[in-house]
């Protein structure tokens, strides 16, 4: 009889351990999803700010009417794009801003210099934000592919995060 009690206890212990492990894994995945969300919020915010700066540049004296036209159109598209079109819209804005940055601008006005500095600072930050977001997404994807996570459906109904295409060539 003593044997069977021991067996029962062992089974119970294993059961509790696996319960703990599952709850631990679920917390881990939850944290990763949270990271994907916050890193995206961060990137999204920076991209929005970039669009705003692009509009301001378009209105300033830095750009000629033709450049202004392109910039304004690109910035509006980037701001209003839905998730599917976002990638192309942001790349378009990058291209438009790229044209501006490649020309040597010899503006002396204080406000213009400020705008260009803000743009280059934003560009640096966006680069970092993309790296942070891509890492979070990759991490989440690779964890969700693991056996335990798939079999016990630890991800629940959370959609699998995807890396948006523009992230590689946004700048």
């Amino acid at each position, binding site marked *: 009889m003593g044997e069977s009690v021991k067996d029962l206890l062992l089974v119970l212990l294993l059961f509790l351990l696996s319960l703990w492990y599952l*709850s631990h894994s679920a*917390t*881990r995945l939850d*944290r*990763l999803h*949270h*990271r994907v*969300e*916050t*890193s995206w*919020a*961060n990137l999204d*915010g920076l991209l929005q700010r970039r669009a705003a700066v692009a509009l301001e540049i378009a209105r300033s004296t830095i750009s000629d009417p033709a450049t202004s036209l392109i910039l304004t159109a690109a910035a509006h598209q980037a701001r209003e794009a839905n998730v599917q079109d976002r990638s192309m819209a942001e790349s378009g804005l990058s291209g438009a801003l790229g044209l501006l940055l490649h020309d040597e601008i010899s503006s002396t006005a204080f406000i213009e210099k400020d705008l260009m500095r803000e743009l280059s600072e934003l560009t*640096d*930050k966006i680069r*970092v*934000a993309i*790296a*942070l977001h*891509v*890492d979070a997404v*990759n*991490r989440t994807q*690779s*964890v969700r592919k693991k056996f335990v996570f798939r079999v016990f459906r630890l991800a629940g109904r959370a959609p699998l995060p995807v890396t948006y295409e523009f992230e590689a060539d946004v700048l």
Partner: protein
Amino acid sequence: MITQPLRIGIVCPYGWDTPGGVQNHIRDLAEYLIAKGHYVSVLAPVIDEDSVPDYVVSAGKPISIPYNGAVARVLFGPIAFARVRSWISSGSFDLLHLHEPAIPSISLLACWAAEGPMVGTFHAAAKKQKVIYAIGPILEPLIEKLSARIAVSEAARSTLTEHLDTDAVVIPNGIYAKRFAHGERVEKWSGNTIGFIGRFEEPRKGLQILLDALPIIARFAPDVRVLVAGPGDSEKVLEDIDMQLRHRFEFLGRISEKEKADLMASIALYVAPNTGGESFGIILAEALAGGSAVVASDIPAFDSLLGHGEFGALFPSENPQELAKIVIDLLREPEKRRALAAKGRTHAQRFDWDVVAEEIFSIYEMSMVGGATVRLASENRAWNRFSTTEWGNQ
């Protein structure tokens, strides 16, 4: 843009009282942030609690253990863990910055204990080791908790990618470039002089390579002299040097920061023949900022710091003949040397704390998106949530 002061908790894995690159980095960063008006608390293993600055909190006395082929002064165990937990819960931090969270020390414990915005900085660079297959599964879920990872060099970044399959943003170590920009030229140190700074007795610092190259250099530059600074037993090293070359050496012992700046401003060339084990090479950044032309071995850290040879000359590591060739070339052509030094000096501004700390701070900002603050991870468990809702949280 965050303008209000933050409460930042920094964790140092190694003994605060022992000299080291990580400790220096943390000290400078903490002091920079404090000067900017932020509240900073550094948790570190400490031997002598009376001699540490105000912002350092002791987590206990460090333990010396062999790790990765060197003796590391780290700290772990239940008492240390309890201190880490109480530091986190009483600090009410906006953000934690953990240094070397993959080393068995208090940074790792803090990463385990805390929840919320956390940034990790990885300093070490190492070749891939088999042991990672055993410890990887333990480390990965922990490293995952960091909202952002920083590597101090490309070498440290690839170490991280190879070992833990995760990427990092590269932000170099910082120097106070201004302090080195105003070194005074010292007459007795100038001329055809080669500088070398570091614990010269350690084989990986590569003094031996320079010693082997010197007979060749001396044949073409008869008045060449070598100035060696850093702690160590110079008598022992001198004994092994050829009698005819001994008079070319001068051992300066430990030198102050001011003397270091003066030395960099006076010497013709700074030579770093390190054979490995270097992740960043802060001394090269300091030499460049001080206006010295630099010759270094082509180990990954130096190669990337010197822009693949653009800001300083590189020679194949552990090859005294090639080192000699480059040194002779640069000693004979002062114009070339000066041009190299000038390029290097401009490049060194990139490592100034004004640039580096701002980059780190922008990572802080990005990690704090979402508005959560640092708390103990256990407060997040289901049963704790239950108990606080049930009986209220006074």
